[in-house]
């Protein structure tokens, strides 16, 4: 898998109450990823970018909400999220910025 592809896989960390809870209690970190990313790609990307060891990756597709705008049906774009569990004792820090 090319380095170029790995740099494109992760879109952003997903920051929310739930995600920070996960991070604190079981060192799981949530990312938004490209819609076609595989677990394997996410794992490699996180390991190479943040210099940590990944234990497992779960992914999910979140469908966009259906919205009606000026009487017309529409769909917001969905997103793919990956929940990355790190090896015990490792952590990531998104806030203070590297």
């Amino acid at each position, binding site marked *: 898998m090319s380095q170029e592809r790995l740099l494109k896989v992760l879109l952003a960390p997903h920051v929310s*109450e739930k995600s*920070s809870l996960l991070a*604190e209690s079981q060192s799981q970190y949530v990312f938004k990823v490209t819609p076609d990313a595989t677990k394997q790609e996410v794992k490699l990307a996180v390991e190479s970018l943040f210099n940590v060891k990944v234990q497992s990756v779960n992914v999910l597709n979140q469908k966009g909400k259906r919205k009606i705008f000026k009487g017309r049906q529409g769909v917001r774009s969905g997103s793919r999220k990956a929940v990355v569990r790190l090896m015990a004792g490792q952590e990531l820090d998104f806030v203070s910025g590297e």
Partner: protein
Amino acid sequence: MQVSVEKPEQGLEHKISVTFPSNDFDAKVEKRLNEMRRTVKMDGFRPGKVPMNMLKKRYLPQVQQELLGEALHYAFFDAMDKEGYNPAGYPAFDDVKLEKGEIKFEARFDVYPTITLPAFDSIEIEKTVAEVKEEDVDKMIQRLQEQRSAWKPQGEEQAAENGTQVIIDFVGKLDGVEFDGGKAENVPLELGSGRMIPGFEDGIVGMKKGEMKTIEVTFPEQYQAEHLKGKTAQFDITVHSVQTKQLPALDEEFIKSFGIEDGTIDTMRKEIRDNMERELKRTLDAQNRQAAFDALEKSIEIDVPKSLVAQEAETMLENYMKRLEQQGMPKGQMPGLTADIFSEEAKKRVKLGLVIGDVIKAHDIKASEADLDAFVAEQASAYEEPEEIKQWYKENPQRLNEARAVITESAVAKKIMSEAKVAEVTKAFDEIVSSSAA
């Protein structure tokens, strides 16, 4: 708390380095963060639900910075207490380090200089004395008359001369052509007042009512209108009337118009004299006090704490700016002034303040209640409702303190005066009052 002070070999600037435990500081930071947590908003979280560690990561340095100043302030003055120093002004903090459980900082501060007061009898002072003489009262009355003077038209035989007023029309021509702004009608002009361009008024001297004349006047080189500079113009002048100044007679009516009830010249003279004497006393007091302080200041050579001077200069600059603003200068147009221009004056003031403070301490000069009452009464007597002013003083402790300061200051001046070598200089009333007004 560990404190080490480095004494200077010369001058007043000390260096201090302090290490103190940061428990209190950390607790305060924690408390502030907890307060913030309730209100801070962050994307992805409901208000008040932001986790503490995220808050810390984002806001800790900012909060620390905010609270550090206060913590340093207290730590510094604690250290000063411990070491028995009395710092002058505010210290400059140089090197602040936050370490785990400890805060270290270095600071520079000035101490008050030790002042050895000179014996007062070695000081030489020029004391000004003056009194109100009869001529001075006469002059004052004359001035009052002049203020009330009116212009009276004269007959045809009166020629215009310096000190008279003429009403004229004039038309200005440049090579036979009228120019802008060179024409006016029914203008009152006092000859000798110098309001017009040089030569213009001279041309009118000698003219009589109804007379017409053409005069030639050369505009000065610095004239504000570009096209007239240095040109010679002809003015056709028509004199409508010649008026002389008429002083009002010193009669009852005139006197009553100044609010003197019985309308006699004697009462008026007395009133004026009283006023003049009050004014004279005030200026003389101020002048002599200044002279005494100046002499005192010159007789002493001390190092003045730099931080105090800087503070004083800042205050002076601020006051100056405020004054400019009151005079209607818009804020944006203020000249780029720095406190530097006041530093000399500020140095003098600080030095004098220190020295006077020391004199007060050394001789145990205090404002007694009786003095205070007398001062307030005197201040109040100049107003129409003395009782109200007294009441106002009583209700404003700050004002009372100011009054006390004034009293002690003049007591110091008196003390110096009484012991120093005083050379008396007699001056006339006019000289003193007008020079203080200038």
